[in-house]
């Protein structure tokens, strides 16, 4: 296999409130000999909120981000479900509407850029599965996770809308019965936990205006994972992580449950990193609000 290379769109969260996500992503890429080129020019994707206010500006900014992957002749990978949604949705719109693409390019030209549509945009999870392969990953495991019951929390924007997901990924994830994270957990020799809330929403996007809704949705997910004997939850989305990790106390309180022990929440690359033999420091485990026991 020739060396895999991608343009990494980190999103804002991985540079601010979840620094451990960026750290662990780079750590496992190194172990797996995957080259990730950071897109330092990129702006925020608008996190599904800017488009509510100014949809055209949202398209222009996301298109600009993709331009920088295209300039490097690399496919883009994302490490946040919502970044993935916004970027992929922009790409889908522009690639299917020449008139809109021309309008966006008119603006981009003013800063010397042009959107072509030549780079694919996928979440790192699917790039790993589709390009690196779970069999190869299995071969690299040095610390099997067989002692852990791991509950995958998929996060909405990787699996819904499914039409968009299917357009950009060879993994045709079924939003009503997603399996990719489960298969990845099995490849790391962990036990994947089946529970009803694995493909449900954490409510992050209304944290500010409707904290009660957000807390209940997050609380339901954590409690469901716990009741199905999970030792730990894992998610590919830093926004889900903020809700599950930082808001865990408020969330479980909102659903009237006292947890016997806090539920550790891992980012996807942290889980992979543990199996590949990375140290807790390399994976940034010290940055979690809900402690991760050694």
């Amino acid at each position, binding site marked *: 296999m020739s060396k895999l290379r991608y343009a990494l769109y980190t999103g804002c969260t991985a540079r601010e409130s979840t620094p451990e996500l960026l750290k662990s992503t780079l750590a496992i890429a190194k172990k797996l000999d995957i080259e990730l080129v950071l897109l330092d020019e990129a702006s925020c994707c608008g996190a599904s909120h800017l488009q509510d206010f100014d949809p055209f500006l949202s398209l222009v900014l996301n298109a600009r981000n993709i331009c920088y992957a295209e300039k490097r002749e690399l496919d883009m990978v994302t490490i946040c479900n919502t970044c993935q949604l916004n970027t992929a949705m922009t790409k889908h719109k522009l690639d299917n509407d020449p008139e809109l693409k021309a309008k966006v390019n008119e603006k981009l030209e003013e800063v010397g850029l042009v959107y072509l549509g030549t780079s694919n945009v996928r979440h790192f999870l699917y790039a790993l599965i589709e390009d690196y392969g779970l069999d190869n990953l299995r071969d690299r495991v040095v610390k099997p996770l067989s002692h852990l019951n791991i509950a995958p929390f998929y996060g909405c924007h990787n699996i819904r*809308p499914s039409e968009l997901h299917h357009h950009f990924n060879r993994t045709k994830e079924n939003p009503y019965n997603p399996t990719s994270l489960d298969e990845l957990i099995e490849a790391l020799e962990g036990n994947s936990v089946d529970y009803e809330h694995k493909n449900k929403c954490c409510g992050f996007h209304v944290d500010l205006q409707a904290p009660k809704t957000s807390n209940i949705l997050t609380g339901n997910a954590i409690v469901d994972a716990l009741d199905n004997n999970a030792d730990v939850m894992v998610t590919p989305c830093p926004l889900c992580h903020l809700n599950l990790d930082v808001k865990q106390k408020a969330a479980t309180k909102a659903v009237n449950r006292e947890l016997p022990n806090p539920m550790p929440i891992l980012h996807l690359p942290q889980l992979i990193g543990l199996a590949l033999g990375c140290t807790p420091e390399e994976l940034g485990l010290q940055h979690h609000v809900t402690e991760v026991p050694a």
Partner: protein
Amino acid sequence: MKLTLKVFRFNAETDYLPHYDTIEMEVDPKEVVLDLLNRIKWEHDGSFTYRRSCRHGICGSCAIKVNGRSTLACKERVVDMVETFGTELILEPVSKKRAVKDMVVDKADFWKKYDAVKPWLVAEIDEHPQMENIIPPSEAEKLEDADYCIQCGCCYYACPVVEVNEDYLGPAAFEKAYRFTADVRDHAKKERLEIVDQLGQGVWDCVKCYECAEACPKHIDPIGKITKLHNQIFEEGVAKSNVATRHAVGFKHSIKKHGILDEGELVLYSEGFGVFKHIPEALEMFKKGKIVMPWNMPKSKNLDEIKKLVDIASTVKF
């Protein structure tokens, strides 16, 4: 193909709790889920109750859940369900807590919220027009597919916010509101937008989970209409300054300043004085190195490009 059906049974008049009947059935892959419901009634238990009428995906009465997924029984092929869920299918009403008898639910809250957006055209109609009232295609296209809703409730009962916030109007009512706010003939655009702009019941409480888009058997994409309502709320000057609108607008300011988002500043900008309630959480995050101080705030490379694009591409004012 042999299937195991687990069928939700409940009679609100006589039962305290529901139970599930297990039925083994030899099924032809060409059958639809409604065929299974019919056969349960005809071959197993004549008291089994469900709604259906048109058998053509038009009346919207046959919505149920199969393994938790909202669907129209008359449209959903059994093979597709088996492909997704395997050969054990769980048949339940769209909402167990609203069940009246077996698959039949009480849709009272659905209709009440649907009515709240005034789902009819508000216009002065000239009873004796001298000329045809012509709507150009470019205007008619704005409705998109919003007119195709059959009020089946698949989206509504799939929406997680409906389950936790009883004021929330939900995807079907929003999609219907858009049906009329996008109609040039309608005179109640602002009034409707004010209804859907209200915190608690309106579009700002949507968690953007896309469950409604996934569930709609007519592929109407209710969340897409919700985004359009957000846009119209700003375009029509209906938006009030509150935590939700400032949150949406705050992204633009932050992007212009740093390229990437300044999370702390966004919360401060959105909440205003309310920011104090986030302090305990912020302290915990700070201890764990999750808060970037303003003087360390990273900036995107080529920030001048971003600033320029925000200036020349921004189309909305608030």
